[in-house]
Every structure is written in structure tokens, then in C-alpha cells.
């Protein structure tokens, strides 16, 4: 009797996770369609769809320009960046067995920002900016891991503090870069991009990040069960025959690549990588095989919604980080309160 009911319950959880993912996917498509239609030049859903599938009248040039030239790249960018940030946050939290970290709390975002800013100073191409952002992010996470290792202190708090130290140092370096940047041209570019924005996304930029993002997330999906094992702790994972350094480095590379790609096209966008995984856990549980897809969809939906609101709510568009912070900070405080037992 017990066996049957417990098995059914476990199957039910699995089915629920699938249903939640399907629901999120439908919601994401609906939101994307709404986002295509609203803005300073409103469109009817049908005409937006017509443009999308190439069925509209060719003399509606404005429709074509707004949908394909402006809104679609921006919508795709916010979707892939949301998915990338949320899945990298999930992966970092898993391998560091620490629910309090994400790319911005490990200094990765700031490091990627420094790398990208240097590339902007050197007037590099989109691909080069991305490479510099990746190297900067990798350097930052390496330094963040170094401090707890040197102090022989593996606690969650130590890692978070170390991330704050490196993040702070990287922000200072960024400040210096801005200080020496040409105030007429580079400074404005760096500042605006650093605040996080999808307003100047071009299809070229999108094309340059799609491949690295796709590969990195595929690898993370493949590794998701190993990340579970690593989250049990280092020696436990080792007794289960897992090559801990290999899984850890592989995951760090993938997660950093995701963050850096997102930073290189949209600047630093905080909070997504931190809070979305927690909401995913509430929805589908802790196992990363279920959590990663849900976090991806949740992050995409969240960032698309926030970007659409920043784009349409006020006459002059505000940087997206303002809104993610306004939403993310109180939500995180609420999560800390709700999960305080577990964090202790």
C-alpha cells in the first residue's frame, strides 16, 4: 500500500514538473507576443504574427521594421539572457552547495563587466567583447574561490564574503576604466551598457552569443544530475566515484560562459541568477535535472516581462537593473525569511 502511494506521489511530482514547464513555456510565448505588440507603435497581435510569418502586406514597412528590426531581437535577447543568468545561478548554487550565491555574488558579473569594458576601450568587435567578458568572469570566479581556499574556510558565508570582496575590487577596476575612458564617446557607452539594457541589441550581437550560450546550456543540462551529486559535498561526491575537480571546472566554465555572454550583450543584470533558482525549487523541487529547465524558463519569462515593462511603462526608458533590483531585493529578503530554517 505504502509502496504504491509513495510511488504515485513521486510520479505525480515528475508530472507536475513537466506541466509547470509547459505552462511556463505557454506563458513565455504569450508574453513574447504581447511584447511584440505593445510599445510606442502599438500593433494588433494578428498583424504582428503576420509580419513574423512573412504573410503581411509588403507596404507595411513600418510594421516590418518595428517587429523584426526592433522588438524581436530585443525580445529574443531578454529571453536568452534571462535563461542564461538563471541557469548559471542554479549551477553555481549547486556546485558550491550554497543557495546564497549567483554570478553577481561571486564577482563573475563584475569581472565579465571589466573584461568587456576593456574590450570596448580597445574598440573590439562583438565576438572579442564576448571573449574578454568570459576571461574576466573566469578570472573573477577563480579569485573568489582562492580566498576561502587560502583561509581554509569552506563555509557558505566565507564564499559570499569573498565574492563581495572580488566583486568590489572588480567594480573599482571598472571605475578606473571609466575614469580613463574618453568622456565624449567611450564613457557613455560603457556606463549605459554597464547599467544593463536591451535597447541597442542588434541581430549581429544575438548571433554572436547564440552558439556559446546554446553549447554551455546543453552541457549544463547534461551535467545537471552530476551537479546534484556535487551539491552533497566534496568527499561525499568523491566516495560516489565522481571526479569532483572535473565536474566543478566544467560547470564553472559553462556557467561563466553563460553569464559572460549575457553581460557582453546586455551589461550586468542583477538578481535574476539569485532569485529565479529559489522560485524554481519551490515549483519543482531541488533536483537539478528538474530545476534547470524550470529555472531557464522562469528566468526568461521574468526578464522578458521586466524588459517589456521598462520599455513601455515610462516615456524615457529606464535601465533594466533598476526594476530587477526593486523586484529582486524584497523577494530575496522574503525568501531568506521563508527558508531561514534550511539556511541555518
Amino acid at each position, binding site marked *: 500500500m*505504502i*509502496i504504491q502511494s*509513495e*510511488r504515485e*506521489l*513521486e510520479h505525480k*511530482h515528475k508530472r507536475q514538473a513537466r506541466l509547470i514547464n509547459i505552462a511556463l513555456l505557454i506563458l513565455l510565448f504569450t508574453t513574447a507576443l504581447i511584447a511584440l505588440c505593445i510599445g510606442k507603435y502599438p500593433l494588433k497581435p494578428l498583424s504582428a504574427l503576420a509580419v513574423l510569418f512573412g504573410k503581411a502586406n509588403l507596404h507595411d514597412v513600418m510594421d516590418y521594421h518595428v517587429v523584426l528590426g526592433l522588438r524581436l531581437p530585443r525580445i529574443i535577447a531578454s529571453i536568452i539572457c534571462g535563461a542564461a543568468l538563471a541557469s548559471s545561478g542554479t549551477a553555481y548554487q*549547486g556546485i558550491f*552547495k*550554497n*543557495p546564497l550565491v549567483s554570478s553577481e555574488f561571486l564577482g563573475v558579473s563584475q569581472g565579465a563587466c571589466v573584461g568587456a569594458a576593456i574590450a570596448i576601450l580597445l574598440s573590439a568587435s562583438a565576438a572579442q567583447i564576448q571573449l574578454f567578458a568570459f576571461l574576466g568572469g573566469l578570472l573573477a570566479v577563480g579569485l573568489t574561490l582562492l580566498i576561502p581556499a587560502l583561509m581554509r574556510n569552506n563555509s*557558505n558565508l566565507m564564499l559570499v564574503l569573498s565574492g563581495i570582496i572580488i566583486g568590489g575590487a572588480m567594480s573599482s577596476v571598472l571605475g578606473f576604466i571609466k575614469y580613463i575612458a574618453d568622456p565624449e564617446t567611450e564613457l557613455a557607452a560603457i556606463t549605459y551598457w554597464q547599467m544593463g539594457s536591451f535597447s541597442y541589441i542588434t541581430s549581429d550581437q544575438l548571433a554572436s552569443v547564440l552558439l556559446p550560450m546554446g553549447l554551455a546550456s546543453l552541457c549544463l543540462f*547534461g*551535467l*545537471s*544530475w*552530476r551537479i*546534484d*551529486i556535487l*551539491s*552533497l*559535498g566534496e*568527499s*561525499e*561526491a*568523491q*566516495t*560516489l*566515484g*565522481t*571526479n569532483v575537480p572535473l*565536474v566543478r571546472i566544467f560547470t564553472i566554465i559553462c556557467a561563466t560562459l553563460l553569464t559572460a555572454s549575457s553581460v557582453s550583450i546586455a551589461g550586468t543584470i542583477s538578481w535574476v541568477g539569485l532569485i529565479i533558482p529559489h522560485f524554481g*525549487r519551490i515549483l519543482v*523541487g*531541488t*533536483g537539478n*535535472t528538474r530545476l534547470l529547465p524550470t529555472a531557464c524558463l522562469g528566468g526568461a519569462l521574468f526578464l522578458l516581462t521586466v524588459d517589456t515593462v521598462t520599455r513601455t511603462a515610462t516615456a524615457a526608458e529606464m535601465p533594466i537593473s533598476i526594476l530587477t533590483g526593486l523586484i529582486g531585493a524584497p523577494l530575496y529578503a522574503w525568501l531568506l525569511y521563508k527558508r531561514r530554517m*534550511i539556511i541555518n
Partner: protein
Amino acid sequence: MIYEVNNISFAYPNTEKLILNEVSFSLARGEILSILGPNGAGKSTLLNCLAGLVKPTHGEILLDGKDISDLPGKNIAQKIGYVQQAHTPAFSYSVFEFVLMGRAPKISFFGRPQKKDEELVWQTLEIMKITHLANRPYTQLSGGERQQCVIAHVLVQEPQAILFDEPTASLDYGNQARILRLIKRLSAQGYAIIMTTHNPDHAMLLGGKTALFAQAGKLSCGKTSEIITEESLQKIYHTDVRLLYVDALQRQACLHAKL
């Protein structure tokens, strides 16, 4: 022989002190070895060596005839299950998910568990009589329940030997007995068992072999009834310990003389 341990020594890097000093013993399937010794004597270090987590500085450990330091972690994990001292994971996996992770040594780098792995977990939960816990968060279990789950997690590894690091620590009196009974049953099923404990009476209840950390990393190993004596216990614990034959129980028991 599952284990043949030949003259292993261990010292931490850049230190002189030998934690293990020329330790040797062997263990066959179905045998139980209890390891006794004062705090800090090197019991956990010995288990970590046996699990392949740390490498002895000298000597060799043969696992099924092969030198353990030549074996990849995955091959070791397919032969040895290790129940480490209780830890609290950062994430609240369900008991089912946690036990399923025991299948890791049998699953490829990018792989994930299949139907047959899940089936084995259900069977093991059933054998351990903890099916009712399957969907509970692992972090919210009591000490005794958690220990049972960890053992189920190790059993789905399908090992030949199981190492226990103080399996009865922080358990209440009844749960201590339950875990010991389980360990005895596992050895009867053919698993080789190596267990550290602070309670000589547990070693006596289990019978089999006992190894005693006498002094400075030296280990004396043999039949439990020969190794555990009043003299040997008084020597390692520096307190007055008595071995008494209790008629009502028809066995020897180990007791403190007085405080």
C-alpha cells in the same frame, strides 16, 4: 579477500607525526571489523585511506587484489560504500532523490538515472522498510531515519564492502541498536563491514574482528574476544573499564567501573 592492507603509514604533509604507523589487516566478505580508539587516534583517517579518499604515505591497500591507488575513483566506488559521519546537505532533496544518487558510480559523466535505477531504489527502500519516507525532504528527517537513508543510499551502490564512520554517534539508544542489527544483517548477507565506534560494547555485540589503536598510530587487530580486554581498554581510554559476563544476557558486556 576484499581488503588486504599491508603496512600502511600516513602522515599529513609537512608533519612528522605518523597518524597511521605500519597498519596491516585483511578482511573477507561477510566479515565485520570494528575499529576502536581514542579521539584523534586516526580512525577516520584509516577509513578515508580505505575509501581511497586519501593516499597512505607508505604501504599498499589491495582491493579485491588490486592496488587501490591504481584504481579510478569510479571503480573504487563500485566496490566500496562509505557512510560518513552525519552531514546536513545544503539543499533539501527528497529521500528518493538522495538514495537514487547512490547510483552515481554506475552512471556516465553526462548521464542520469534510468528506470531500472529507480526500480532498485524502490526495492531498497522497501527492504530497509523506509518506503514511507520516500517523498520527505532528507533535511527534515530525525537522526535515526537519516542514518537509514544514508545506508539505503550506499546499498544502491551495490558495493562489496561498506565503511561506517561512527554510525551510532548522535543516535538515541533504540536507534543505536537498530543500526547495529542492520549492520549485522548486512554482514550476514555477504557485505564486508568496517566500522569505527567509541563504544567497545558495540564491537562486542557485533563480534567478528576488532582493531584497536593502541599507541601512536599502531593498530592491533584480531578476533574481538581476544583484542578487547580490560587491560587493552584501560590502556587506550585511561579509565577503569570492566568486562563482565552477564548471565541473563549470556554474553560479556563492557561497562564503566565508576566515575
